[in-house]
């Protein structure tokens, strides 16, 4: 059973890679954000809202620069722009590497959250979540935000 599951997963991986590559080639080099990153869980706005309600220790990092954040941000989120992100700055925001941490930026096209996620992966954080859709989807979904 375990073998079969692995096989299915592998197949899915291959399939998704294929879809990704084909969509990449179809968009002729326009950079599309990957939908998933290995070792990182991508989450929706509803998942994020649920996690926030259920887990007070959840660390949400706003990877936008200041200009983006000024248009509104998720309450309780910590501002750490991707350009300022490294293992040291992360360590200041996240107490230990076992803490769940969510990264977001403006939208699925902004890329800053992905940069930060990559850095966090390198810095060996174990529970990384990527709110890929970003603040715009959060706001339009009707979830509360601060300004």
């Amino acid at each position: 059973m375990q073998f079969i599951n692995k096989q299915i997963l592998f197949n899915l991986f291959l399939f998704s890679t294929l879809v990704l590559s084909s969509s990449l080639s179809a968009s002729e080099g326009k950079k599309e954000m990957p939908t998933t990153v290995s070792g990182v869980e991508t989450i929706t706005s509803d998942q994020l809202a649920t996690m926030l309600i259920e887990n007070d220790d959840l660390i949400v990092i706003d990877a936008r620069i200041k200009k983006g954040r000024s248009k509104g941000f998720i309450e309780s989120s910590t501002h750490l722009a991707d350009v300022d992100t490294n293992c040291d700055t992360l360590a200041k925001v996240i107490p230990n590497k076992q803490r769940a941490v969510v990264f977001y930026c403006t939208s699925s096209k902004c890329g800053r959250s992905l940069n930060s996620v990559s850095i966090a992966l390198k810095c060996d954080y174990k529970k990384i979540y990527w709110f890929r859709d970003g603040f715009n989807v959060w706001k339009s979904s009707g979830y509360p935000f601060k300004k």
Partner: protein
Amino acid sequence: MHPTHKNFSIRTYLYITVTLMGILGLLLALATGNIYREVTLNNNQQIITNLVNRQLTQLSDSLAEEMRELATSLISENEFSHKTKSNNKNVIQDLLTKQFQRQFSDEGQIKLTGIAIYSVDFSQIQNVIKDDKAPERNIACKKLLTEATTRTGIHKTKTYFTYCNYKNSPYFALLTPIGGLRPYAFLYLESDPSPVFPPLRNSIGLPIQIMTDNNKLMYESDEWEESHTNQNTISFDYALTQETDSPKLQINVANNNKSLNMKLEKTRNAVMLIALLVTLITALIITWIIQKTVVTPIRTLSDQLKSLKIDRKQLGKRVSVSGNSEVNILASEFNSMTVELSEAYSELEIFAKKEKNSNDAKSAFLANMTHEIRTPLTAIIGFSKVLQSGNPSPEKLKKSTNIIVKNSEHLLQIINDILDLSKIEENMLEISKNEISLYQLLQDVNNIIAQSILDKKLSFVIHYTYPLPKFITTDEIRLKQILINLLANAKKFTDKGHVYLYASYTTESNTVNFCVEDTGIGLSSSQQKTIFNAFTQADSSTTKKFGGTGLGLSISRILSQKLGHEENGELVVKSELGHGSQFSFSIDPGEKNNLTLCSDLNSFIVEDELEYDFDNQLQVSGNILLVEDTIDNQELIGTILKDVGASVSYANNGQEALDLCQEEVFDLILMDMQMPIMGGLEAVTTLRSRDYNGAIVMLTANAFEKEKQACISAGCDNFLMKPLDINALFDNIEKYLTPLDVSLTSRSIVSTISPEKNTTLDDSIIVSTIITKNGKFKNLVEIFAQKLPDFIRHISEALDKNDIEQLTQHVHQLKGVGGNYGFIMITDVCIIIEDKIHEKEYGDIPPCIDELQSIYAKIIAGLDHPSESSNNIKPK
């Protein structure tokens, strides 16, 4: 084009077509312009509608954003959060009122109409509603609240907004949690959407009016009143939310775009004008092309045809054509037709001219002939009537018969000439050459013509220039014909002087040359050119003066051409007016090597074969059937036949002959060719088919070869030409009947067929015509002359004895014998005596006997004058 036809010309059709095309083009342009205008206007409306919809949606979105911003900023204020948590209603009421007044008094986009705070379970905590339109209302948007209460879990933390209706007036409502993801209350905000509309006017650029569902004005741009009309107003509904029961706005836009309309009008007019021009120009070009390629060439052709009608000289005139279009093909066909026609026409003209000339000539000839034939006929009939009436004197009788005979001969000559001419015209003149003695030929010519020339007191000499061929191969009859014709002409046109005939031979060209010379009236040079033409004499007055058919020279010329070598057979004339003429021609005497050339008269003379067999007393026994429809000919030929001793039966036509032949077989049948009831040819054919073996000789007036052939192929043994040559007749009688040997005296031939006039220069002597022909008969004539007194005595005695039988017999004997010995006057007198006997006027006979005595004396005198009786041949 025929003028009575009501068809229009091609040009008219073209003009009609052009006009119709123009009208059609105009209508098409009008339709196109209108359709274009309609489409453009519809398009414009659609664009305006879409634009307004999009603008409204944007404005609505921005309102929602602003309301949410407002709500968020309210909640974020510490004072608000603090006071709402206090649960003190008054405090909250104050707060809300303060906030509401602040927002309401703002002249921004948001015109807040209500504000309230709800507990989490939506039991109302406190509210402030300040709304001019509905001051009594204290219930917020029910739809929104109902929606909110049904939410669970995280969805309760979401902000919701929508449009609600209050008394058909829409308003915007928003519900947002207070306390973030762990709400402890909800903030409710309401606003009037009207303030968001004014930017619409600028963004779409047109006067606009926005009404609620129940026609309550929500917004109207400044210029709306003066600019909107029913025609230019675009009206449509706008749904404020996606829900089916969404509140709606009625949008009116004044599409008062004058410049657009003007543009459209202009465009439509331009399209129409261009369409019209294009149509007209196209039509004009087509008209021009058709005019050039069809109408003009056809007009040219028809003009040409018209001018042809007026002037036929236009035939053959070509119309210039180029190219290969149908009209050009037509023109080129017309050209070839007109050329062919002109050629045919000119041929016809030439033909008609020829025909007219030939007709004119024939008419002239016929007129001439009629005159010529009538002249001798008049004489013949006139003198015949003289003979018929009363008792003519012997002199009168003699004169009359002589005139009749002369005229008959002339008539025969005319007919022979005409016959020859018709043969020549039909190219049927046949030349049959035989070897003959040149001397004999010239003797024959002399015998025929000499006396008549001498009668005119002219000297006639035949000059021989030796060497001359003894025998020549030629057509004897034709050669004689030429010579006699020329000599007769010479005699006719000469009053004094001489007529000479020269004969010579040219070795180099191997020709025998004849020249007839006279000292007559001669011919002018212009006359010399025309005399050889058929039907013409030197001039028309000549005919009147001298008579003649005018055919002789023409025939002679053709005959001489036939007899001569190809290059020198021409009959030529040399003449001087008033001094005489020379007619010369040359004939081909046959193969040069076969000729025997004589250098003197002795070797040249050939003895006469005695064709004129006056002393060959033919007597035959046998029976002859004479088939002849004319009684006169029956009598004449019958008499001759009886004279030679044949018994003669008569049949009037072929049928009678057939009947007779069934009963009897004849030694000889003489069959005339042309007879009524049954002709000669048919009769002969029938007889031969019945195995009739007797000899048949056809008598025919047709000298053509084909007639002769027809006779032979029908089964005839021979044929004879009419008028009958008595010697030829005798030859045939001798051939088919049994000849008897008889004495001279028993033979008598009535010489009515070829009477000859005794010719002398002196009335006191008579010379026998047979001596004139041949001197060797002189002895025979002398013997006869010695017997003549006995004949006269016998007649005189019989008359005295009143022995009529004896008288008749003696007179009859003398009649035949006298003529045969060349004394026609004896015959003439005997005939008179016979008449007297017949009429029993015996008293009139003695003067006749005296006449005979007188004749006898003259004969004796003639015998005593040998110089007078010798022939006229004077060898050179």
